[in-house]
């Protein structure tokens, strides 16, 4: 055999099934763009109106800045409290939902199902549910963030636990340490970077989503934004949007600094 014959082909010839599947996927993407009402002409027609709106927004109106900042603080408090409580609940749930630490298959499946349910139901649906059950205001928002955090952190905590080096865990099991001691002395310290990462991402996510939650009455700055937009007070809306931007940036920078310090 010559050496040229031994060189594999640059590209493998696709099978008939994978070719048909690729064509179907491309067709479905194009079909989805049509179904989504995507229209370049409508976008171009809307551009002047976007310009007008931006013109109305600037300069931002800061006459109500104190109440806006109060609502902003409320939003952050909602996000922080919801994240802390959500992370606290996610920790035991993450253990039960991890293949390596769960005490049994039934517990594992139930924990995974609960985490998946919390994650797959959208935030706004949870917010509507809690507004309907506990009433308008920040408590409904906090409950929503707790559930959202459990869905997010529960999954990532479980995966973080599954990915750790199991050597230290084996070493402690080998000397007869109890299951709780093994968790606290080996599993949690090893999974800590993953926990911290997930919890901080969760906080950033909670700050962003708590703004939206206000739009359905779950408290915070979202309520202020909705009122400003409904009353055509676009310059006040601009102040609110800029304040939200500052809050999100500050939280992201802070969490990046904490991450750098701890990991």
């Amino acid at each position, binding site marked *: 055999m010559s050496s040229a014959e031994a060189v594999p082909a640059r590209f493998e010839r696709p099978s008939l099934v994978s070719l048909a599947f690729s064509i179907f996927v491309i067709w479905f993407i194009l079909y989805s763009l049509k179904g989504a009402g995507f229209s370049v002409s409508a976008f171009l027609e809307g551009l002047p109106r976007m310009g007008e709106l931006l013109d109305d927004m600037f300069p931002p109106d800061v006459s109500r800045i104190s109440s806006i900042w109060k609502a902003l603080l409320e939003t952050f408090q909602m996000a922080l409290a919801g994240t802390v409580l959500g992370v606290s609940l996610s920790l035991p749930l993450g253990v039960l939902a991890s293949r390596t630490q769960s005490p049994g298959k039934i517990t594992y499946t139930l924990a995974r199902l609960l985490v998946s349910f919390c994650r797959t139901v959208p935030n706004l649906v949870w917010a509507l549910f809690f507004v309907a059950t506990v009433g308008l205001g920040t408590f409904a928002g906090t409950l929503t963030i707790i559930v959202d955090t459990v869905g997010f952190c529960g999954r990532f905590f479980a995966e973080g636990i599954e990915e750790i080096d199991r*050597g230290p865990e084996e*070493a402690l099991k080998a000397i007869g*340490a109890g299951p709780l001691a093994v968790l606290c*002395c080996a599993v949690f310290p090893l999974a800590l970077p993953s926990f911290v990462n997930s919890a901080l991402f969760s906080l950033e996510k909670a700050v962003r989503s708590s703004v939206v939650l206000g739009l359905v009455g779950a408290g915070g700055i979202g309520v202020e934004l909705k009122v400003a937009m409904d009353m055509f007070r676009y310059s006040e809306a601009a102040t609110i949007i800029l304040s939200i931007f500052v809050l999100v940036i500050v939280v992201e920078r802070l969490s990046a600094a904490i991450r750098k310090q701890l990991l």
Partner: protein
Amino acid sequence: MSAKVALKQNHIQQHLAVKRADLKVCNLKKSFSGKEILRDVSFKICSEEAVSLIGANGSGKSTLIRCCLRLIEPDGGRLEFFGQDLMLANQRGLRKIRSKVGFVSQKHNLVPRLSVLSNVLHGALAYQRSPRLWFQGFAPSVLREKAMHCLELVGLQDFGSRRADHLSGGQSQRVAIARALMQQPEFIIADEPVASLDPQAGDEVMELFVSLVRKEKITLLFSSHNLDHAIKYSDRILGLRNGEIEIDTASSGQSAFTLRGFYE
């Protein structure tokens, strides 16, 4: 079998009959995906004896060692530690027996983010269930001092507050030995304890390890690819080939050259 080896084995049998057997393994079996790794493995280790386990890669040494503590569940056979049947023990009973057996592995298996002192203190989890032991900051003073004493024994008394992942390989293994000593075990099982160290560090750590074990009168089973270590540091050598014990002989009088033939 030569007359010399037969004489030695006879001597070993007499020795086993007199001393208490700390570990008895009878007809131990283990398969993975239909492949037999251990086939009817049987041996005894007496109190205060040091036994080395040799064998080529894939011969089943690590599996045997883990099966002895039921870190891997054997498929069959009997295991007795200190006269107690390990195979019949429930989780609580298993923990009780394990608490008397130290385990040192090739990878050291320290918790990297925690301090050296915390890692050593974890050895006391074998006999103290208190959550205060989870972090050195909360541990009782008596145990903190004891952990520092164990670190002193391995020459790392100045490393207590250092993070475990900031240590060299030799230092990590010394900390793992200190953790095993903290446990106050009656028996130590070591799976290739110096395999990840360079020859000089390996010799130093092995010398320290075995001298401490001898001083504390702890029974020892260790696996090694280093035949000189097997001869120098053990009273008896077990040779595992294809999942079976093929050699069970006193180490005195053996040479690395003759034992090397076992790997062919």
